[in-house]
């Protein structure tokens, strides 16, 4: 990678930026889930590693969250954009060199920011934890170059129309810049108190709604037609999905702090808009499942489709929860409990991670022109992720319901802590499975570069048989 930083644009092989992003994202995935599993162990066994400030739960939690969001998820997104956008425009990436620098700064900036958080250098606001010095790097060094590259690649395309995936990529890279800039603005404009708290959650909500969800969906709009060979079921439903994301997903931020004294109109507005999130969700899921018509055998046989469709199916419970848990009555019961943690992992570890994993699997094979080293290992990875995630999700959902009941029926808090203990252990076991599965994935990908079967020119990876 370093040798390309100063190379001339023409000397950099096409796809290098995407490959570097792909491998970086896998490494961050392993690191991030290792941290998650460490935190889970601490919540189950509080005296596991104690007495060291840097390793205490309060210092490690935000490092896990931002490592997976900005390291794994966002870098996998960047990887997907850097190979899917040009592929759909029948062209090359606008600037491969910018892409390489982007990846380099991303890794450095994120490492510095996370080490800072680890030492306790935080702004004290959830999800926008990074101090504003780092935020400036994130906006200027990570997001703007990415957006520039994606939008310019779309502009210089050699096809007439723009395919659904690229609408989402272009719009999301643009919106996430605005979201980051606005969400971190309290530190610049002396916005304090409730305004600041509200903006914090405006940021958290919109990073999920305008960045993670649409980009993950966009990936599946590419992978499913590409691998199955079926055309997208409906372009029109794609339109509906896109516009309803922009209109409905960007508004319900206040539902994260329903118990705070925010103005009532804002809370009610958020609640109603939140239910409308079901519109893009249904459009998305139905469109993709209908695209699969006649090719459902691939759900079993093909590893990329297996990941993608699992992700799409997980979007159903995700949005059912999301749509209703922010209505006041339900929110009253589950707010702040483990239910929300389960929901967050359903969105990020379930829905979006499965889609990104598919993009990284497929992209690295296409770009390296190497068939995946081992299908068995890939299947093992899939099942470790799915079973690990399911264990996590179910145990935390139950823990959340217990907590909710405890909160409403006025149970002394310590009894709730005791009742949750088995589920905390189950969550730790589930999370550790995810982590171990990822280690296997890293090994599988490493072997793929070294000894994977070479894919002949003019063929696609999924057309070749596995050798192992």
């Amino acid at each position, binding site marked *: 990678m370093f040798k390309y930083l100063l190379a001339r644009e023409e000397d950099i092989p096409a796809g290098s930026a995407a490959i570097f992003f792909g491998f970086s994202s896998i490494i961050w995935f392993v690191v991030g889930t290792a941290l998650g599993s460490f935190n889970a162990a601490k919540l189950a066994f509080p005296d596991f590693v104690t007495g060291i400030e840097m390793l205490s739960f309060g210092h490690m939690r*935000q490092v896990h969250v931002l490592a997976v969001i900005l390291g794994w998820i966002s870098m996998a997104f960047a990887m997907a954009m850097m190979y899917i956008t040009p592929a759909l425009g029948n062209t090359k990436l606008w600037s491969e060199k910018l892409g390489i620098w982007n990846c380099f700064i991303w890794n450095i900036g994120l490492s510095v920011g996370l080490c800072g958080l680890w030492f306790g*250098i935080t*702004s*004290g606001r959830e999800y926008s934890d990074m101090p504003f010095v780092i935020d400036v790097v994130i906006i200027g060094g990570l997001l703007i170059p990415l957006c520039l590259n994606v939008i310019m690649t779309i502009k210089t395309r050699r096809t007439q129309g723009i395919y659904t995936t690229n609408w989402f990529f272009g719009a999301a890279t643009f919106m996430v810049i605005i979201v980051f800039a606005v969400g971190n603005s309290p530190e610049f404009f*002396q916005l304090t*108190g409730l305004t600041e708290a509200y903006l*914090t959650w405006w940021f958290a909500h919109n990073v999920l709604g305008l960045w993670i969800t649409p980009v993950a969906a966009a990936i599946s709009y590419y992978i499913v037609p590409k691998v199955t060979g079926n055309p997208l079921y409906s372009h029109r439903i794609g339109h509906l999905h896109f516009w309803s994301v922009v209109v409905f997903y960007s508004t319900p931020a206040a539902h994260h702090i329903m118990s705070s004294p925010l103005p009532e109109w804002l809370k009610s507005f958020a609640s109603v808009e939140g239910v409308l999130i079901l519109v893009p969700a249904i459009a998305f899921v139905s469109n993709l499942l209908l695209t699969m018509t006649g090719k459902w055998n691939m759900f079993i046989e093909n590893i990329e489709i297996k990941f993608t469709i699992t992700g799409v199916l997980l979007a159903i419970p995700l949005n059912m929860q999301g749509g209703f848990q922010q209505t006041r009555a339900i929110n009253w019961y589950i707010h702040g409990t483990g239910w929300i943690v389960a929901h967050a992992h359903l969105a990020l570890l379930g829905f979006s991670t499965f889609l990104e994993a598919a993009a990284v699997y497929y992209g690295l094979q296409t770009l390296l022109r190497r068939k995946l080293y081992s299908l068995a290992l890939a299947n093992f990875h899939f099942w470790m992720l799915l079973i690990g995630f399911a264990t996590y999700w179910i145990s935390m959902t139950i823990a959340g319901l217990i907590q909710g009941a405890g*909160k409403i029926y006025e149970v002394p*808090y310590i009894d709730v802590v005791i009742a949750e203990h088995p589920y*905390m252990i189950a969550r730790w076991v589930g999370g550790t499975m995810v982590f171990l599965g990822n280690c296997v994935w890293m090994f599988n990908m490493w072997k793929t570069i070294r000894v994977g079967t070479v894919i002949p020119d003019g063929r696609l990876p999924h057309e070749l048989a596995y050798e192992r």
Partner: protein
Amino acid sequence: MAFREYKIGARMFGLAFGSSMFITLYMAAVDISSVSVSQIGLHRQLGFGRAGGFSYEDPFLRGWAKPTQVILAVDPKTGAAIDPVTAYVYEKDVPFPNGIRHPRILGDGPRELSEGRGRIGEADDAVGAVFLTHEVEVNGELVPYIENATATRGWIPAETLAKVPDNKRLQVGKGKIMFVREGCWWCHTLLPEQTQDWQYFGAPPMLGDFNGESPTAFGSDRKAPDLTHVGSRNSSREWMMIHFFNPRLVQPHSIMPRYDYLWGDKDASGNTIDYDGWRSAYNEYAAGKSIVPPDVPVPHKDSEARALIDFVLNLK
């Protein structure tokens, strides 16, 4: 952008995204920031100081350049005894809280009174200031305001501090930093919910209670009780001390981490704390081999643990 549709689409996109931002950012922010600060809000921001998270004056979150909240029993200028009052002492170069730096944050009523009667405009970083809070009736409504006692009564910060014994000082500003840095808000909330929190623990927060505070550290996950009113249900300094050193000493089932590292090297009487010795004695006790647990060292008056305990006890 070859097609006319894309031009229209791009404009529609701008319109849709723009109007969603208008509603959720502009309208919301204008509405929220039109609220006037309450007495509680003044108390919080004056006690915590300008920033509770990363800032230039305290980039490593060590609690540098923070105010001290004191209970004054004598007039620092004349030395005469007065009814005990809570004062917020900002020594030289400690940045003033947001309401002093940007009085519009206080809202119309409190701003006018604070600038007119309270003379907060005269507060000067190079000297520091001592602040008091008051509430007066204006047109049938109670309006709180800040008084800059350095301007109105000539109370000098350093002299004021010198008149207050250590047990009447609360390092809540530094304690808030510890609260944020140590991530207490990943388990505890500072935002009670409409459940037993409101019924037993104390009044729910109101709109003006947070003006000027940054960050509010509400917390979103609850794995532990809400702390908004913890100081009024448990005011024992000793319990807090034991609980922070090792929560399992007072609550065997607690999952709260140990915060013994906040004690630093020395205890209150200047002796070096022997952590290894303490832990092995505790392990013996936890394993049932000894009957009494080892004594918890009393934190040094400048330690981080002391500031954190001050902060927690001050949450009333």
